[in-house]
């Protein structure tokens, strides 16, 4: 744990594990790791924008989830993202909701 901020080290969420070996471990290339986190922020934000929130990387150890009015929560991984987003926005984040799917499909075009 970081003694200054209280963030627990050693993320064990399944999405952070072995799909790309080394990307999320501290021993791997720092640039690869930062690139992967930037990619995650970019993709998650394309969905989160539909709900009026966004995440940003926080010192390479966590993410900040913020609403447009500044309400902010620290999240450790994707496992915490969606409950926190629903909590902050008061909305249901459902990937099977037709309006969301249609909006994402249009944004590709």
């Amino acid at each position, binding site marked *: 744990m970081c003694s200054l901020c209280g963030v627990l080290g050693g993320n064990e969420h*399944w999405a952070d594990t072995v799909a*790309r070996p080394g990307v999320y471990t501290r021993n791997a290339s720092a640039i690869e790791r930062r690139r992967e986190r930037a990619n995650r922020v970019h*993709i998650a934000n*394309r*969905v989160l924008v539909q709900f009026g929130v966004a995440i940003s990387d926080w010192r390479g150890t966590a993410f900040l989830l913020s609403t447009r009015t500044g309400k902010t929560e620290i999240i450790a991984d994707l496992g915490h993202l969606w409950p926190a987003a629903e909590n902050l926005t008061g909305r249901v*984040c459902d*990937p099977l909701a037709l309006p969301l*799917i249609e909006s*994402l499909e249009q944004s*590709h075009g």
Partner: protein
Amino acid sequence: MAEGVPAFTPVNLLTGFLGSGKTTLLRRLLADPALSGTAVLINEFGEVGLDHHLVERIDETVVLLQSGCLCCTIRGELALAIRDLHSRRERGIVPAFGRLVVESTGLAEPFPILSTLKADPVLRHHFRAAAVVTTVDAVNGLSQIERHSQSTRQVAAADRLVLTKTDLADEKTVAKLLAQVRRINPDAPVVRSGETDLDADALLNRVGTASEFHAPLMCDAPNGDSHGTHIRSFVVTVEEPIDWTAFGVWLTMLLNRHGDKVLRVKGILNLAGEAAPVAIHAVQHLVHNPVHMARWPDEDRRSHIVFIVDGIDPDLVRRSLTAFNALVTPQAERV
């Protein structure tokens, strides 16, 4: 760590509806020399515990949890019991067991038991969920599945299915039951307990390995008879390589909202930028760590994901996954 103890001790869940032959199966499995280093944890719903006497191996590695169902009332007790076994193993008080089998009550939901292993801050560093074995009574199984949602969920969560009492049921009943079981859980191997010598090791071995995917992935017919339940299985096939990050965003979002209705997810993924496939495996909210497979099982290089769901529209799942996978734009790849 005690000598001979694996870094992560596999924990098998033995489940099945009331009277479906869990304890009988456990007794047979424990007689197999391959399981000599196995600790057992038995949970009973009644006030007086009987099952542990039936196992006929009462020693310090058999623990009885009484007066409550593992899935709801005594999950904390389950964590404490496993922690206690682990502590006594480390101190050399009990033999260094290399596997733990948890026999649940016939009314238990499988998922909360599995999630205890992952959620407990001590257990998750020493134990890993292994195969879920579900017993299905050949005589009464069909009516239990149709009437009791717990029975259906136990079948859906199974990595291995053991059909018990097949000697007491006629072939027509067994065939009907098998068809129903296959509709709920299309690809878990089915073993008939009465007719074959049980290979204990094969039954309990870890899931999510490459060999699991050598058999073709199956699903039910689109218009199959639902027998009054809303549980069904289907395969989503994705032609394009899947972006792992987009997939992670999608599946975490899906399970957060629909985890109680997504009973199982099991698949082989062709990930962008990866030569070998990655196997994924989830039971409701619990996603096992993805496994890098050494090679593709055949010539097919597409991703196939089997879903077992309760009342979810397969077309929405397909469309949603496709929309999320397309979120990776050229701009994102240059970041």
